[in-house]
């Protein structure tokens, strides 16, 4: 079955590529109608939050935390400055969706951030965009300028008494800044090292003030939820898994791309949208939610639906929605080494199990790959991974450990073969 596509964050994809990111194009689709309605009618923020809760929108950044619930944690009536921060630091290997929202639909994100600010009592927002995103940064700067010029941002907007100022902040090449408290440290002009929690950002966030952090896709979904209703959004997906979601389908498929399809779409339909397997190769394995989540064997994946709960039942996670497809003939030791190298490189270094453990994992995998593996190496990998998970300040430690455990579980024979014979089974 061909799933319904492009109904929320990509709803403007059918417009002309040269102009679809502009204010005029966004207005032509009903853009800023929700924001202007809020400015006119000043509804009770609690009612909007209820609508978001009803929609069952879950955080698109990786953790899948319900967005409405997160907003309700904010002490919105407490005095003093509060902040809304957008996490556009997209860096999880396999994930390439936020870049396209930023480039192709920046105004919808701006409207979403403004509405979020209204709901949580924040009059200032920062959009943290990774520094390598030169083109998206330009687009977002341009869009903010357009929005100010059109009287959609600023102080006492359209005489409503509502203030909302929005700024882009740029990263400079550190995956860890995608972790929300590292991101806050980074905006404060420091190394991006995650904070110990509690206190959580809703109490003690940016500059020590109450702060909500949401992913680009989560925030860009908000205007459409308000336009069409929480019930509509919920009905696009599955109970507890509202809406469509962007999936970045990459790796060994014929037409890798981003697809916005309903949560609950069968994996096999998504694979078909991506043109099926590249060069007719057989499916070996899928990493269904970005490099941090457990790998799932291909035959299992063929019967899994793409929503948070179904993927969890299959032993993995939907994560950021990055679906990495791996064909038969690929050396899984090599893939795992690549992942481990990433986490070693990106560990911020403040927790010993993560800093030392990621280095151990990489070095042991390197020597196995080089044909110098030792008989006890798989137990060593298992034990090192087991000592990282759950013992660190942030989830990068778990992210480094989980792939190791799942690769060893499903593809142990490939590792054993390489250790015994000094060369890969796939070669």
């Amino acid at each position: 079955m061909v799933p319904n596509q492009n109904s929320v964050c990509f709803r403007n994809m059918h417009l002309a590529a040269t102009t679809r990111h502009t204010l005029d194009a966004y207005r032509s689709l009903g853009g800023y109608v929700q924001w202007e309605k809020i400015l006119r009618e000043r509804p009770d923020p609690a009612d909007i939050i209820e609508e978001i809760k009803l929609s069952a929108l879950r955080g698109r950044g990786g953790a899948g935390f319900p967005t409405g619930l997160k907003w309700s944690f904010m002490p919105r009536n407490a005095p003093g400055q509060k902040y809304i921060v957008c996490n556009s630091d997209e860096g999880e290997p396999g994930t390439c969706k936020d870049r396209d929202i930023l480039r192709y639909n920046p105004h919808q994100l701006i409207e979403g951030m403004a509405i979020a600010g209204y709901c949580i009592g924040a009059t200032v927002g920062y959009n943290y965009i990774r520094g390598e995103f030169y083109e998206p940064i330009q687009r977002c700067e341009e869009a903010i300028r357009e929005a100010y010029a059109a009287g959609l941002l600023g102080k006492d907007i359209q005489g409503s008494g509502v203030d909302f100022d929005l700024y882009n902040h740029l990263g400079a090449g550190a995956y860890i800044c995608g972790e929300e408290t590292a991101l806050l440290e980074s905006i404060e002009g420091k190394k991006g090292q995650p904070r110990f929690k509690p206190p959580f950002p809703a109490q003690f966030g940016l500059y020590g003030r109450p702060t909500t952090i949401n992913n680009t896709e989560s925030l860009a979904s908000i205007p459409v939820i308000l336009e069409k209703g929480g019930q509509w959004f919920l009905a696009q997906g599955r109970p507890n898994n509202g809406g469509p979601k962007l999936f970045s389908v990459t790796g060994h498929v014929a037409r890798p791309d981003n697809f916005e399809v309903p949560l609950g779409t069968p994996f096999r339909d998504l694979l078909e949208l991506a043109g099926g397997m590249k060069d007719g190769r057989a499916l070996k394995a899928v990493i269904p939610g970005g490099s941090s989540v457990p790998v799932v064997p291909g035959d299992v994946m063929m019967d899994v639906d793409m929503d948070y709960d179904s993927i969890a039942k299959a032993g993995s996670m939907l994560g950021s929605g990055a679906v990495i497809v791996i064909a038969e003939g690929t050396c899984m030791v090599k893939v795992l080494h690549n992942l481990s190298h990433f986490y070693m490189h990106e560990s911020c270094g403040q927790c010993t199990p993560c800093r030392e453990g990621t280095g151990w994992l990489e070095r042991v995998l390197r020597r196995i790959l080089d044909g110098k593996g030792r008989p006890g190496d798989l137990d060593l990998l298992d034990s090192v991974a087991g000592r990282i998970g759950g013992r660190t300040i942030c989830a990068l430690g778990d992210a480094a450990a989980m792939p190791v455990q799942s690769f060893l579980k499903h593809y142990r024979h490939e590792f054993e073969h390489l250790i015994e014979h000094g060369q890969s089974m796939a070669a």
Partner: protein
Amino acid sequence: MSFRNAPLAVIHDRDKTTLFTPEIREQIDIWIAKYPAEWKQSAVMPALTIVQDANGGWLTPELMNDVAAYLDMPEVSVYEVATFYGMYDLEPQGRHKVCVCNSVSCLLLGSEELIEHVEHKYDVRLGETTADGRFTFKEVECLGACRHAPAVLVDKTYHENLSPQALDKLIDELE
């Protein structure tokens, strides 16, 4: 991790109008204006980027000290930032930076071949600069362009779906 949440303001005994050029100061000031007045240090990352771009792509200790003075920060805090983030270079660079993504989606579609090809053809290892100073060759982590893997960042432009031949062409066009 820091439990401290006050800016680390220190006043340097230097006349700010002697730091950088007026154009650079103006660019940094645009960033400073985005943050609360007492949090000038929030502009440290963009300031380092601006200063690095104006200095042929790398940061000297003197430039980092100047950024510290301009933002009323301790020098060591600026060094911490400059050494933590991957986009700052603390050594002289080639005239261009060619950064090949070697994360998983790009690996599956041939990033290693790209790297080997460039290493052989231009006689340069990862992290090195070509003998003629044309470009510095780097391996980077996921660029967020995985749907068009393999991806390469040349200075400030993304190039996607690259074959070794297409990458050659790009490199040959660099001055």
